[in-house]
């Protein structure tokens, strides 16, 4: 039974990937991509990668999908997705080459060792010393904490890049366009009812991350989604990017992470090491500090460059 489900999932994934690539209409391609992300999340569940499934659903499919939808609607809704692919006589060789590369890759994957060498036993053996029970969190915030810190900084760099696209008169202003909707319409209603629930769920996903699948990235995505919902319904307006509180909140997470890292130098003998007995509290403190920063960064990345002045 499960084999059948997995097979079906694999076929569906391939079909959706092909549909997304071949779709003539940009909007259709984006919808295909979002559905593909959702199915991919299911595939990760089947592979017991719940953390990855959550991330894929939240960021890979949800946030990226929204970003693409935004972009597609900014261009032309019915724009021809395959319009600029260039000379058609180069298509066949390009397709053949792609197939050749894919084929070679497939052969290589099959050539991977039957029982792949993995660090999972290593992680499990050292899990106790990190005081958290979710091995993914242990990897992300203890064994390879540097990578997580740097990823948080990557997001900030991306935000600097997005902001730098604003026109000079609007620099420092509010990102995106002011949204209006019927004050008693269904969108405003949703934006009033859903956020409290969403915030609770987001906080729960964040909190449970230390011991079970979940964590700051997935939680932050949910919180950012709730924020964007409120903005989309016109119940609130995006803050001007010159606001000091906004900028401090953006960098507070990574700075706190670095501070805890240097604290480890004093107390545990290495940068990004945690003193025994305080590992879990410190990890949670880092995640708690990163949560608002990530929420803001993800939301602001979606809102885009400042498009208007400071006035609401």
């Amino acid at each position, binding site marked *: 039974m499960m084999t059948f489900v997995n097979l079906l999932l694999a076929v569906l994934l391939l079909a959706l990937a092909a549909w997304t690539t071949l779709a003539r209409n940009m909007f259709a391609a984006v919808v295909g991509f979002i559905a593909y992300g959702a199915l991919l999340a299911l595939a990760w569940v089947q592979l017991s990668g719940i953390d990855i499934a959550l991330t894929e659903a939240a960021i890979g499919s949800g946030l990226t999908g929204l970003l693409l939808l935004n972009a597609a609607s900014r261009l032309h809704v019915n724009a021809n997705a395959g319009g600029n692919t260039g000379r058609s006589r180069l298509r066949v060789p390009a397709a053949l080459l792609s197939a050749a590369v894919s084929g070679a890759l497939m052969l290589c994957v099959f050539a991977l060792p039957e029982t792949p060498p993995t660090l999972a036993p290593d992680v499990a053996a050292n899990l106790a010393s990190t005081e958290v029970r979710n091995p993914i969190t242990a990897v992300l915030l203890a064994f390879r904490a540097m990578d997580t810190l740097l990823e948080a900084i990557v997001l900030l760099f991306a935000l600097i890049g997005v902001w730098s696209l604003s026109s000079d008169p609007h620099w420092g202003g509010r990102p995106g366009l002011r949204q209006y909707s019927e004050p008693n*319409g*269904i*969108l405003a209603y*949703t934006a009033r009812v859903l956020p409290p*629930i969403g915030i609770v769920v987001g906080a729960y996903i964040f909190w449970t991350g230390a011991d079970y699948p979940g964590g700051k990235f997935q939680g932050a995505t949910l919180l950012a989604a709730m924020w964007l919902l409120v903005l989309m319904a016109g119940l609130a307006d995006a803050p001007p990017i010159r606001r000091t509180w906004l900028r401090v909140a953006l960098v507070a997470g990574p700075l706190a992470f670095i501070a805890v890292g240097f604290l480890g130098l004093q107390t545990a003998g290495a940068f990004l090491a945690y003193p025994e007995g305080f590992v879990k509290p410190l990890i949670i403190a880092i995640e708690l500090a990163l949560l608002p920063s990530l929420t803001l960064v993800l939301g602001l990345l979606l809102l885009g460059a400042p498009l208007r002045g400071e006035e609401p």
Partner: protein
Amino acid sequence: MRFPDTLTRLHALTKADNLGLGLVVLGLVLQAGSVAAALKLICVWLLLLLSGACVSQLIARNTRERESRP
């Protein structure tokens, strides 16, 4: 085609979505090990009902506005 336009398709879709998912959840509730798990499943269903209803409203409204424009 049985459902020629967006509105009729939405109409059909919401039935399948809400009721079908409700039945799936009902089946899972019977299998759930604890009351808490059962309640969580019901919460999931309720949330999906809410979002499904809102989204189909929005799609329908959008369609009507686009059709009313020449």
